[in-house]
C-alpha cells in the first residue's frame, strides 16, 4: 500500500479511535460507578451483548492498527534503507495480527468459552 494511503489510514483510525475510546471511557466511569463497571458480572454481560462485543472488537482493531502503524512511521523516520523498511513493514503486520488475534481470543472465549 502507498505511504499516502497508509497515512490516510492513520488519520481515519485516529478519528474512529477518538470516538470508540471516548465511548469505552464513558462506559467505564460515567454510566456505572467504576467498581461496578469492572465487576465480573457486568463485564460478562457486556461481552455477551452482541452489539458491545462488536464494539470491543472494533476498538481492538482500530487502536492496534493505529498504534502499530504509528510505531512503523517512527521507525521509518529513524532509519531509511530498503531492508530496514521491509522488515519494519513485515514486523508491523505480524505485530498487528498477533495482538488482534490475542485480543479477539479473549472476546470469543468470553462469549462462547466454557469457563
Amino acid at each position, binding site marked *: 500500500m502507498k505511504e499516502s494511503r497508509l497515512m490516510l489510514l492513520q*488519520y481515519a483510525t*485516529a*478519528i474512529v*479511535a*477518538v470516538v470508540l*475510546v471516548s465511548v469505552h*471511557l464513558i462506559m467505564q*466511569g460515567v454510566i456505572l*460507578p*467504576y*467498581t461496578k463497571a*469492572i465487576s*465480573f458480572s457486568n*463485564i*460478562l454481560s457486556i*461481552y455477551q451483548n452482541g452489539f458491545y462485543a462488536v464494539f470491543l472488537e472494533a476498538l*481492538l482493531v482500530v*487502536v*492496534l492498527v493505529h*498504534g*502499530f502503524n*504509528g*510505531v512503523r512511521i*517512527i521507525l521509518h*523516520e*529513524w*532509519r531509511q534503507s530498503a531492508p530496514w523498511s521491509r522488515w519494519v513493514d513485515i514486523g508491523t503486520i505480524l505485530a498487528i495480527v498477533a*495482538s488482534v488475534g*490475542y*485480543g479477539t*481470543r*479473549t472476546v470469543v*472465549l*468470553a462469549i*462462547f*468459552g*466454557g*469457563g
Partner: protein
Amino acid sequence: MGSEGLEAAKNKRGIWGWLNPAHMNLERWAYVFQRVTGVAILLYVLGHLGDTSFFVGGPTGSGPSPSGWDFIGRIFENSFGHLILVIVVLVLFFHGMNGIRLILAEFGLIFKKPGAIEYPYRSKSLGSGQKYLIWVGIAVAILAAMWAFLVLFEGMG
C-alpha cells in the same frame, strides 16, 4: 569532519534529535510528546490486552473465569494501579486532542494564507491558532485526568 559532514550528522540524529532541547518551540515539543505518548499508549494497550485476557483465565484459559479476574484485580485495583490509569488518561487525551490538531493541519484547515517574508520573520501561515489548540489539548488532558482521579479514587478511602 568538515562543515558539510557536521551538518549531515546533525540531520541524521533521527529520533535522538527529539530529546535535544535546543531550538525547541511549543510545536516541536508537541511533536515529541505526540510520539512519546503514542508509544506509551501502545505499551499500555498491550498490557491491557494481557490483563483483560485473565477474564477468560489468561493465556491458557478457556472461558469466563471469576478467579482469573479476581487474581488480576488484586494486582491492579489499588492506589498505584489507579494512579497509572490517571496518567494513562492524561496522555491519552493529550495524544487525542493533539492528534486532531495534526489532522486539521494536515488538511490545511488551520493554516493562514502564506505571505511575503518580512521582519521579524515569523511564519505567517502558521498563525496563532495552532498554539491555542496545543494549549486546549493540554487543558482538556488535565481536566480528563482530574475526572479519572475522581472516578477511580471515589470510595477508596
